[in-house]
């Protein structure tokens, strides 16, 4: 693999990864995950979707889940109630009930159905590409879904100026890993279409690590003492989109959510 700037970086493994002028991995590119995480972060069998009239198109595809265990990464001492290594979300009891309630109302209450900004980490594993724009100072991450975007401050830690849908991101390099600390999310986002969620006190630490010339390992550790009994971590690869003409297109979904959100207010409806 030739580095994009002619300077490829010998990361600790036996592959080359593009490098920047200042010696960090060059994460510039368009990336996408390939999993059913956005359907459900937890292991799940295939099931009927929320909208039966869509037939198979609306059905939930099966997946083994993306939760890898406790915050320490793969701490095998952390096992769920069935004795498996933690593969489900360690909800506090009241929070689990809220998740179940979210699930029951997902057809209308999932923020994705309403084209709301997705928050972090959900933005990463939605079924749409994202673009990492790594400049000489800060990093911008742009998501195709809903034109979501966030700046990752790299030069100095910048304190959050307000709560927001996409939160507030400060980044740093830990060797070849980009570590992003995300705070100040507004607690109105969900983590997937199954109603999994966090609150406004959620703290997310993301790690983007080169795994091969065209792969990053994406990890996010999620901590929220008001919702979970302990921090937990998801992990999945991000694949580089290799089509020569690949680019983010607009998925400005507001107009596709209007009938769902405002249809009852149209003339002649439900009066």
């Amino acid at each position: 693999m030739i580095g994009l700037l002619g300077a490829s970086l010998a990361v600790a493994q036996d592959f080359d990864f593009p490098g920047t002028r200042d010696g960090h991995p060059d994460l510039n590119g368009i990336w996408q995950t390939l999993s059913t995480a956005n359907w459900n972060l937890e292991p799940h069998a295939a099931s009927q979707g929320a909208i039966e009239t869509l037939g198979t198109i609306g059905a939930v595809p099966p997946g083994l889940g993306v939760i890898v265990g406790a915050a320490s990464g793969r701490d095998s001492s952390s096992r769920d109630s069935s004795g498996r290594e933690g593969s489900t979300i360690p909800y506090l009891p009241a929070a689990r009930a809220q998740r179940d309630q979210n699930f029951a109302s997902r057809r209308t209450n999932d923020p994705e159905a309403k084209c709301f900004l997705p928050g972090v980490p959900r933005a990463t594993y939605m079924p749409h590409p994202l673009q990492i724009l790594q400049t000489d100072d800060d990093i911008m991450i742009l998501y195709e879904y809903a034109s979501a975007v966030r700046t990752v401050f790299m030069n100095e830690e910048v304190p959050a100026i307000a709560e927001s849908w996409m939160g507030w991101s400060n980044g740093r390099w830990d060797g070849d890993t980009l570590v992003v600390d995300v705070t100040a999310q507004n607690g109105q986002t969900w983590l997937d279409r199954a109603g999994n969620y966090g609150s406004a006190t959620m703290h997310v630490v993301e790690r983007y690590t080169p795994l091969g010339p065209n792969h990053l390992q994406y990890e996010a550790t999620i901590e929220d003492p008001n919702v979970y009994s302990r921090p937990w971590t998801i992990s999945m690869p991000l694949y580089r989109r290799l089509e020569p003409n690949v680019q983010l297109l607009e998925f400005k979904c507001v107009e596709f959510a209007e009938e769902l959100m405002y249809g009852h207010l149209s003339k002649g409806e439900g009066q």
Partner: protein
Amino acid sequence: MTRLTLTSRLFVLGLIAAPLAAMAQNGKSDREVPRTAAGQPDLSGHWTSATIVPLERPVELGNKELYTQEEADKLLAESLVVTETEAGTAADVHYQLDDFGLDRSQNPIALNLRTSIITDPRNGRMPASTAAAKAAADARAARARERGFDSAQDRPLAERCIVWPNEGPPMLPVGYNSNLQIAQTDDYVVVLLEMIHDARVIPVDGRAGLPAGVPQWLGSSRGRWEGDTLVVETTNFTGRTGVRGGNVLSANARVTERLTRTRDDTVLYQFTVDDPETWTEPWSGEYPLTKIDGPMFEYACHEGNYGLANNLSGARAEERAAAEAAEKQ
């Protein structure tokens, strides 16, 4: 309702368009501009498009392109005074503007001697619409009068939080939230408009534009460096985005933008709209973008769009009231 003394809070940044235009000739700037490590002029940072210069020149000014400094000072003082509204009247029911950053006096403004943003045609006004564009604009206006409140889909694009005119292209200044952030790599220039959180991702790597049949709200933009000027050509419009005056950019419009960092605190923004389906001749304009401190806020327009729902339920309430009144007669 009284407000704070406006002039005392006015930030006056930047200066004057005439020398900027001269500097931007042939993409040359007359002093060393900041550059990226790759040697490109560095456009990155936070900027504002806030201006008191109108898009179109007042008719009575004819071909007068620039104000004198005295005239400009007077206009600035006048234009930043918000009309007082009388307590107890409907006109007095509005946001406390200086609480929400909607008051122009709270924002840095790029001062500019120009009498209009439009520089061509020479009278500083938009050229005449084509007959077809006029007919289409009339039809849209009639439809809006007839059924403008029937459903969300009948409301204007900006009210629906789909796209705003400050996002362009051409990026035309609006009254408030005029902040934008430019981020730059060797291969891309991204222009992130704070309102309504849209990023224009502009490849500058020579790739072809999108194929026909893939319209985008903000068009398909491709950039290239001409000297020290970033030139951005945009096609693939939707044929639905409005431009002031009731017209829309046609799907076949071509917009050319030129961004030149003329000073440390200034990027000169110039544009040309070439849309023969809509206007009888191309039109061009320019204004300075002025450096501001970041960071920007997240402008989550749709997520907090109570106004749209309230407008619709208000219309339904009026219909119910009218129906009840008719029944009583």
